[in-house]
């Protein structure tokens, strides 16, 4: 009885299930490929291209580089992480240029800013991974080779499938869609000329509302996780470049750049304000402004050090986040007073001396909430990761002097 109801199922599960990540992701990719093909049915719905924009050699050349970067990143990510990261940045940059090329300036700005922050995050994270210079012995096993070939087949199949579908849709005539309504009504109904921004803060502001919640949650999670984290023992040692130079020499070496970075602070704040105010009419908006502001804070950390900044500048990122979320929710609920549903916006232009006519929609207030949240969440994440280095430094000091363990705030 016991054998029948316990041992046999265990054996069956051992065959049927896996706890490893790679087979699970492989199954996911394979199943989506199979279902996608099954959904298409017997044959691919070819249609003669009805809509083709002119071919541009420069654009093709750009993607030749972008594609090479992507493949290079895939090639190098195991042993040369830094090179892979640089190539990832290259692919991102080409993506960003593509947006600019194809009439999406808002996307280009946002992609560029996000690219900067992501790269900084990944760079900060790289330091905690184990060194790997030589090849691992098991890479040359026949089974590993077979796995790689199978994965390559799946990757090529997936990539060409997506490319085929994208091309097929892009060359179809545009179906009548809700986008036209947005174009026609953005100025009269939404009170802004930059339709993309009007969609984000007015027509579909509820998406943005959820999106800032995601950012807030991730900021909190990153913060809480790193509060309880101790790095792996061998990563605690100082990185090579820091060991080579003493702190004094480092200060001299970075003197000029750090002064520049310090002076960038007010400039970047101005840029952020500029992005923010013109967002409703021209590319920009609360998110771009928020990330710019976060980069301004980040540069202060890069230019000097954590202790210096925190002695002079008090940033309470979690407060910023709370206030940002409350502003966004409060703006939305404000329309209840006038008997309209959540997030109904009211728009008009107000002339401000020196700056001129500024769109003053209630949507701007919502955007202000987005701005505060983005600053808070981004700074919180960056600082939480940057503090790991500080904590590692303290751990070294503790090892030397062995003082009582103290919680680091």
């Amino acid at each position, binding site marked *: 009885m016991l054998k029948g109801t*316990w041992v046999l*199922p265990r054996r*069956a*599960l051992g065959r049927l*299930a896996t*706890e490893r*990540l790679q*087979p*699970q992701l492989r199954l*996911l990719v394979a*199943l*989506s490929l199979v*279902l*996608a093909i*099954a*959904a*298409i*049915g017997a044959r691919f*719905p070819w249609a003669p291209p009805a809509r083709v924009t002119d071919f541009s050699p420069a654009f093709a050349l750009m993607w030749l580089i972008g594609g090479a970067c992507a493949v290079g990143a895939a090639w190098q990510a195991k042993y040369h992480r830094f090179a892979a990261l640089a190539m990832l940045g290259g692919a991102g940059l080409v993506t960003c240029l593509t947006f600019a090329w194809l009439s999406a300036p808002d996307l280009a700005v946002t992609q560029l800013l996000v690219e900067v922050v992501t790269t900084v995050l990944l760079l900060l994270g790289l330091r905690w991974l184990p060194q790997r210079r030589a090849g691992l012995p098991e890479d040359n096993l026949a089974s590993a080779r077979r796995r790689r070939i199978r994965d390559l087949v799946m990757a090529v199949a997936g990539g060409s499938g*997506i490319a085929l*579908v994208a091309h*097929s*849709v892009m060359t179809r005539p*545009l179906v*009548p*869609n*809700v986008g036209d*309504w*947005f174009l026609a009504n953005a100025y009269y109904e939404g009170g802004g000329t930059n339709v993309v921004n009007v969609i984000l803060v*007015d*027509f*579909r*502001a*509820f*998406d943005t509302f*959820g999106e800032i*919640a*995601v950012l*807030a*949650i991730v900021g*909190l*999670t990153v*913060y*809480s*996780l790193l*509060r*309880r984290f*101790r790095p792996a023992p061998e990563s605690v040692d100082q990185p090579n470049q820091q060991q080579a130079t003493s702190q004094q020499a480092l200060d001299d070496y970075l003197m000029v750049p750090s002064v520049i970075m310090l002076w960038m602070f007010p400039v970047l704040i101005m840029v952020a304000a500029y992005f923010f105010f013109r967002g409703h009419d021209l590319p920009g908006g609360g998110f771009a402004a928020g990330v710019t502001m976060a980069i301004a804070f980040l540069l202060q950390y890069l230019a000097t050090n954590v202790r210096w900044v925190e002695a002079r500048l008090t940033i309470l990122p*979690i*407060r910023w*986040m709370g206030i940002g979320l*409350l502003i966004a*929710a409060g703006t939305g609920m404000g*329309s*209840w007073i006038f*008997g*309209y*549903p*959540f997030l*109904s916006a009211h728009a008009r232009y107000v002339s401000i001396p020196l700056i001129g006519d500024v769109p003053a929609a209630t949507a701007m207030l919502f955007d202000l909430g987005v701005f505060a949240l983005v600053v808070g969440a981004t700074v919180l994440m960056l600082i939480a990761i940057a503090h790991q280095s500080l904590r590692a430094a303290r751990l070294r000091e503790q090892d030397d002097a062995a003082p009582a363990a103290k919680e680091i705030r």
Partner: protein
Amino acid sequence: MSQHLIIAPILIPFVAGALMLLYDDRQRAAKFWLSLMSTALTLVVAVALLLRAKAGAAEGAENIGFYLLGDWAAPMAIVLVLDHLAAMMLLLTSVLALASLVYARASWHRQGQHYFSLFQFLLVGLNGAFLTGDLFNLFVFFEVLLAASYGLLLHGSGQVRVRAGLHYIAINLAASLLLLLGISLIYGVTGTLNMAHLASMMPDIDAANRPLLQMGLALMGVAFLVKAGIWPLSFWLPNAYMAAAAPVGAMFAIMTKVGIYVILRLTMLLFAAGSGASAGLGAGLLIGLGMATVVFGVLGVLASQSLGRIAAHAVILSSGTMLAVIGLALAGGGEWMLAGALHYMVASTLAAGALFLMVEPMSRDDGGIAAMLALTAEIYGAKANPPVEDEGPDGPAIAAGPALLAACFALCLLALAGLPPMPGFIGKLTMIQGVFDTAATSPWLSWSFVALLLVSGFATLIGLARIGIQTFWANDDRDSPVMAMEIAPIMALIAVLAVISIESEAVLRYTDRTAQALHQTSRYAQGVLAAPRADEQPTPPEDDR
């Protein structure tokens, strides 16, 4: 004000979660009371919304509520839709949330920062996903609930959680990308994101575009299958659910149901009988995957040695059963079967939630979670781990605790196994009735489905009874204390199950209305498209039936 009630289940936890960020992290008591108020208020609102959905149906009036966000007309911007199914899911979520929150007060929230904020944001995501009528907005709320679930899973940190979290996040990120691909492909060929608009367009989709539309829906479907924990995409689930703190595990019991909810909603809207060439698409696949998941769940329940793992596999079992029923309903299985399945879903979700809450008190003899954390510390040296502020659970222990716990466990077992007098029995019975009443499915299929239902109940009985015997009889010489804060929410959940059992006729009537409403696709679609803006007079809906 009452017209704004629909959005309250999203806004109340959102504001509460945001407010808590302004408090210092040490003011945990204040945060707890704020969370409790917010969750209780959400529960009250959910009850009010459920009554509204029910009352509308009783008067024969329009039983679907709409809320146009930003006051923009329906297919353009985002609309929230409250129908029978959404109201039911909202109530289920709030009941489970309240129990989990009170339970967390015992000790769990102290293991890390911002527990209560993350918890409130999880509610935002869940309620948003149940209410929204827009595909992209659905993606956004899915991300909200997933991000919050990442945070809650990692809450308290530790090697086991981080490793389970890494897998959980990687798989869900990949699934989210698939979801985005699917949604944008649907927009590319139809030009809309509104579910109701899409449903009304389904019959007249161009023959050249239909395959691509179906492909978009298939990609979305894969993403939701991952989230619903369907075999073979569910291997991450037992580890993630087991590693999570007990109250979080209880909330996770409803997260798989979000995937099931969306699959149910979308298949009934888009592949119903009136949707032209796509009618009934994927029914066979859903039945097959659902039954395979049930088999997998049965094996898992039988093979598990710990309560947490059994609870996780019970969640998979219930997901699989629901998926198979959705497939059968799509193939023309009838409303009565779906009504039974919805009844079963409510009961099994609550019971699985209660089971997760029981994991900790029942395994405290072995050291429970504290032992897991200590093990981590042992392997990586005391220095590698932060001091765990484990002061033991709060509040008084009660003398009758173990006995009460054993009683709750027994009732929970009956509910999950589908035995009388607990409500799981009624749901299963109705499903079996429904399957045999319909002529749409082959007898072979009906019989194998019923056989699986019975086997799964039997397996749950064996698996749980084995654990129960080990815990309550094998070592009764040293009873571990059970805290009042822990046993109270478990008893409350069991009490809710008992009420469902006593009032099963009323509940079944409600789920039957829900199932009927799900089959009336055009009413949903036309209702959304005719939803009036704030300044307009409502247009009378055309009655098509």
